[in-house]
């Protein structure tokens, strides 16, 4: 059974007459104008495909459920899978183990839920410490390390250039040169009180 369609302001259940009205409607609960676009998925009955039992010894069975008839092999490891174990993703059939492996190694872009933006991290390491001058001694090498270590790591799944990596590397190099010069200059200046 589908869940109720609720008003976004007062959570009032919006009746069917309010759905898909071009001019919208007013919520009876809070009197706010609501536009409700309802789609056929609301009426769709969802049910999972149950695996079929193995009827003869000659039939291939599922690797994880020996009593279930195999429906498809895993596209990664070749194990036979029943309808319950088959995970279909981008036209490929995967077993739970391969799916988990792909998930942990970030190879399945379409199911990833989180990514670290290493380019932003490098840029932060290259910019914020230099505001206090001396922390740049740690910040600049850190930024360079992130740039070299994570250059090939996939960034956002959305369109994103590597301009932050370039900027971080340039800034970090400039800071290292600047700090080197500063140390050299300090070493060259005669100490106060020295004869």
């Amino acid at each position: 059974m589908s869940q109720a369609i609720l008003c976004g302001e007062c959570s009032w259940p919006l009746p069917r007459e309010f759905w898909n009205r071009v001019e919208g409607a007013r919520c009876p609960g809070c009197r706010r104008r609501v536009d409700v676009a309802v789609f056929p998925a609301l009426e769709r009955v969802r049910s999972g495909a149950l695996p079929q039992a193995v009827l003869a010894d000659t039939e291939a069975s599922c690797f994880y459920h020996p009593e279930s008839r195999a429906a498809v092999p895993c596209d990664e490891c070749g194990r036979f899978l029943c309808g319950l174990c088959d995970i279909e993703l981008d036209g490929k059939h995967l077993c739970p183990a391969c799916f988990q492996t792909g998930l942990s190694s970030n190879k399945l872009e379409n199911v990833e839920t989180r990514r670290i933006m290493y380019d932003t991290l490098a840029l932060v390491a290259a910019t914020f410490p230099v505001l206090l001058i001396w922390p740049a001694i740690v910040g600049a090498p850190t930024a360079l390390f992130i740039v070299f270590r994570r250059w090939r790591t996939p960034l956002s799944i959305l369109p994103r250039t590597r301009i932050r990596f370039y900027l971080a590397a340039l800034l970090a190099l400039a800071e290292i040169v600047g700090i080197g010069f500063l140390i050299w200059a300090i070493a060259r200046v005669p100490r106060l009180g020295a004869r």
Partner: protein
Amino acid sequence: MAARKSLYRRLTGRRRTPLGYSQLWLAPDHILLVKSTRVAEHYQRFALADIQALVVTELPDRIPLQIALGGAALLWTLAALAVSSLFAKGFFLITGALAISAVIVDIARGPRCRCHLHTAVSRELLAPVGRIQKARAFLDEVRAAIEGVQGHIEHLPAEPVYQTALADRPPEVPQPPGYLPEMVFMLFLLDAALVLADLRFPRNQIGSALPTTFFAEIVLVVVALVRRAGRDSRRVIYGVMVAALLCIGWDAVNLTRSFTALAMEASHLPPPTRLMVSWEPLAHGEAIFAAAWRIGAGVLGLVSAYLSRTP
């Protein structure tokens, strides 16, 4: 370096917060909600085939708030005329102009709204869709994409439907009133005790606490009256509070007067003189009045609150 070809198309602008932003993107088979903390991105995907409904709810307008903010920003900017320093003039002009432009942009973006996406298992707030104008464009684009996957949506004819909706009205969940009024009346009794103690032991500086506790009374009474907002039906209690607010005002006037007199006296004396020890915040008659009305209001309010809670 050019970015690789992405399967995503931008649906909305970024909804920025102090700690990041969120944004909606459209792929051929799903909608992607990105929540970014700048350093990390979190993704939520909604398959077009699974989306059951999109609900856009208009939110109340903020015209009074916008006018107040605009006025405050204008006054802030005009403060530049009242200062002589060039730096101060520049500061007031620039910050004031920024505040005014923020208000203008807020007005220009139009009425606010809230958009929820319903699936069979979840109801997700789409934070990037925050304005009606943008929501309409968003709905048009997404509706076409979802129709492409799920099929056509039938538009129902317009007809009066409120009676049906009211018939389906769910039962209201009663909310028990809070205990803030009881706290206010307890504070009245405590302050009455302080006033009387100050009257009995004038050299113990108990009266020095009175400005703070009087201020606490004002804040609590105002908060209790604002929070009531028609939800609490205990009218006697709030009537007592309104009357008490007037009496607090009178006490505050007396307190300010005595403190001003003390300050004037101190300005004519040499610095080491310790006048605060001998300060009497309220004269004898004023103190009796302050204590008496507090005891009356406190007892009346607490009894009334107790009776209204007793079935």
